[in-house]
């Protein structure tokens, strides 16, 4: 230790000591799940030898895209301190409307319909929350049923489908084409994540969303309007659903009211697993990105091992619980206190 640091006031040294510890915690926040993903990928050749074949990997990337794209919107929602439980209903409705538009007017109509329907769903949620003052959890739980219900109504005479003769249309290609070996849905997802990162880290509205999630009352006195934040977040979720519907529907070619049952939980699980704090204020898109793949790779490995789908759900649930336990412990370590204290249940 140099003489200069020796003459520093002890309190300043104390602060330094604490922060180096916390930045390690912050490192885990952002990269912890990514590390787990890499670990899992390193283990896969031993468990599932066929996993690393190109076609299998492409299938994993394509399958992950629609969960991943919506997870970007959901990361903003959770970082702002809210949930959007309606994304499953939004996806079903948007998918049905998109197919109807395609069968009526072709590719351009389908793309326009997907984006418009997603945005409208988001506007409905934002309106319920900001105009009628319904808490987001309740508002989106209600709209989940409403959106799904409408999707069922529209497909009373059987599911909407993408007829096989259009297999070579640009629309169908969204789901099947590879560019430089990478599936287009994956490339779209990467673009959405990149845009989301810029939005969250480099724009005023992104910063304000984090500030609002961190402390709504303090944010108010910083001139942040809660109406604007809610509107932004829920419309953004709707937009990501619209984009996701394009990659989803061109993969499965059919949709009705039951499409992607439980989708909202998959998306929320990925965001939470990625390290975005449930209480708001923190959002990590890098974590979300890795968590999306962690879940799909895990699923893929289980499928290749012939594990039943019921067990797959159980494994996903356990992974989520373990991740949150680690997170809870880490949060307690971040405040001063001993290891023993951290493990002791809070009273």
């Amino acid at each position: 230790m140099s003489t200069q640091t020796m003459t520093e006031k002890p309190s300043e040294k104390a602060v330094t000591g604490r922060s180096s510890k916390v930045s390690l915690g912050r490192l885990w926040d952002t990269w912890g799940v990514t590390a787990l993903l890499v670990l899992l990928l390193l283990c896969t050749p031993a468990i599932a030898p066929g996993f690393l074949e190109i076609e299998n990997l492409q299938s994993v990337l394509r399958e992950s895209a629609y969960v991943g794209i919506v997870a970007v919107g959901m990361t903003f929602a959770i970082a702002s301190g809210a949930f959007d439980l309606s994304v499953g209903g939004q996806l079903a409705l948007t998918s049905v409307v998109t197919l109807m538009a395609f069968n009526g007017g072709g590719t351009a109509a389908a793309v326009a319909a997907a984006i418009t329907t997603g945005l409208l769903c988001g506007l409905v949620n934002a309106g319920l929350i900001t105009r009628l003052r319904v808490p987001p959890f309740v508002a989106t739980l209600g709209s989940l049923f409403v959106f799904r219900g409408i999707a069922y109504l529209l497909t009373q005479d059987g599911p909407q489908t993408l007829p096989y003769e259009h297999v070579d249309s640009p629309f169908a290609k969204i789901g099947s084409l590879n560019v430089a070996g990478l599936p287009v849905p994956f490339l779209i997802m990467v673009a959405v994540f990149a845009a989301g990162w810029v939005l969250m880290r480099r724009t005023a509205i992104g910063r304000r969303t984090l500030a609002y999630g961190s402390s709504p009352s303090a944010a108010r006195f910083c001139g942040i309007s809660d109406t604007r934040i809610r509107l932004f977040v829920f419309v953004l979720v709707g937009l990501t659903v619209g984009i996701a519907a394009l990659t989803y529907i061109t993969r499965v070619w059919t949709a009705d009211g039951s499409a992607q049952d439980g989708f909202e939980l998959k998306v929320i699980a990925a965001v939470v697993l990625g390290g975005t704090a449930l209480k708001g204020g923190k959002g990590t898109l890098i974590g979300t990105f890795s968590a999306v793949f962690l879940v799909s790779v895990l699923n893929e490995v289980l499928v290749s091992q012939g594990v039943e789908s019921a067990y797959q759900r159980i494994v996903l649930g356990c992974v989520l619980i373990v991740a949150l336990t680690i997170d809870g412990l880490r949060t307690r370590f971040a405040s001063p206190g001993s290891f023993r204290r951290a493990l002791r249940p809070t009273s």
Partner: protein
Amino acid sequence: MGSDPPLRGDQALLEVNDLTVEFPGIRALDSVRFDIRPAEVHALVGENGAGKSTLLKVLGGVHRPSSGEVRLAGDHYRPRRPADALAAGIAVIYQEFNLYPDLTVAENVFSGREPRNGISRGIRYAEINRRTSELFDGLGVRIDPTATVGDLTVSEQQLVEICKALSVDGRIIVMDEPTAALSADEVTQLLDVVRRLREEGRSVVYVSHRLDEVFALADRVTVLRDGRHIRTCGIADTDPDELVRHMVGRDVESVFHRDRVSGGEVVLELAGVGAGRRLRDISLTVRAGEVVGIGGIAGAGQPELSQLIFGALAIDSGTMSLNGEPFRPRDPGDAMARGIGFLHEDRKAAGNLPDLSIRHNLTISILDKVRDGLTRLIAPAKETDVYAGYHQRLNIRATGPDQLIGQLSGGNQQKVLLGRALAPGGKLLLLNEPTRGVDIGAKAEIHRLINVLTADGAAVLMVSSDLPELLGVSDRVYVMAGGEIVGHLTGDDRTEENVVACATTGRRIFSEELSKR
């Protein structure tokens, strides 16, 4: 513990020897000694970060010492959890109360130890209500045991905490900054209660930043600084100046130094402004270069007034003007766009953005000014420049721009929030309790900053419940009571007596009327 041998008056009831508490990377307490005698009030003073809270938490069974010992009536005292401390007769009342806001006073006092009926196991409400009443009578205060705690004022909640300590017959009652959020009247009441506790033979450890209370109350005083014991002495053997020197480790220049500037242009003017039942017929002016203080007992409408000017509370009647133009902000964002800076009185609940770094806490109110010219995106380099500017100007002690605001001491958090209020660069600052819960060193720095700002022509409207600050820093003082302005004190009329008289007795004192006579 009923069979303790009787203690001599000067023999310590509780003794702390060579106590060291270490957290990863920090030594919060370094070989500290401390003792408490029976029936004494022992004041514990020191700046934020001096180790007072850590010492309290060791006594309260929250933290465990790394080394050293604590003896209670001669026996080793090693509480493993807060309940152990309570069982040993040591009750610690933290700044954040441990109360259930939805339960009644009596339910809180006896929470977890309710006397129950033999068969039904139902709580005997009549008994806990009666016993709670008796405890309050003993303290000489009146609080309804069946009232809901969430409906009580902060000072009443404090008394509930004290009552809780008495209900377990606490021999040592430790109070952490008990008067931080109390009005002058409530402080007087609390001091009386503490004296009664001493008369009953109980010992009180009294932690406070307010030296006037310490000298009014304490028998002995201990100063901590940077986790070390600096001095313990009888209160008669020291004086405030000496304590301040020990606390900060250097001489502090005269506490309130003001370069009085003659008032400039009128920056803010309110005429007959009202808002519901909370504010009535408020008229006032604030000029450039002036600090205008707003005083009064808590709940008289002072924070509401500043929130109304900031656009956070709707105006029902009257008019406002800013720099001579009509002014009626829609929301705080609107007020900020007009260059008004605001500091909320509740740093934790409505100031800090706890998950954001210091840099981001500073720039949140001026995101438009830290954008890149070409891309219109936030430029981190510009944010760092903003941080660097305030870091130096406000003397913020932090490891760097990316440190989370919650990791700073209270005084440094306050400096960051002041920086945020200054950032809009405006000519009007609304400061609510600018030095609440801030140590003496930081307090002097904040006062110096206000001085510099007004010398540069800024207008400051300051709400303060700290009378010496209100009178020392302000050029003029308005006193509020019941949502109205009941006094306007300038020049030599700015005395504690006048402020208290206006705030509490219903008298109206307006300097301009006095001088006409």
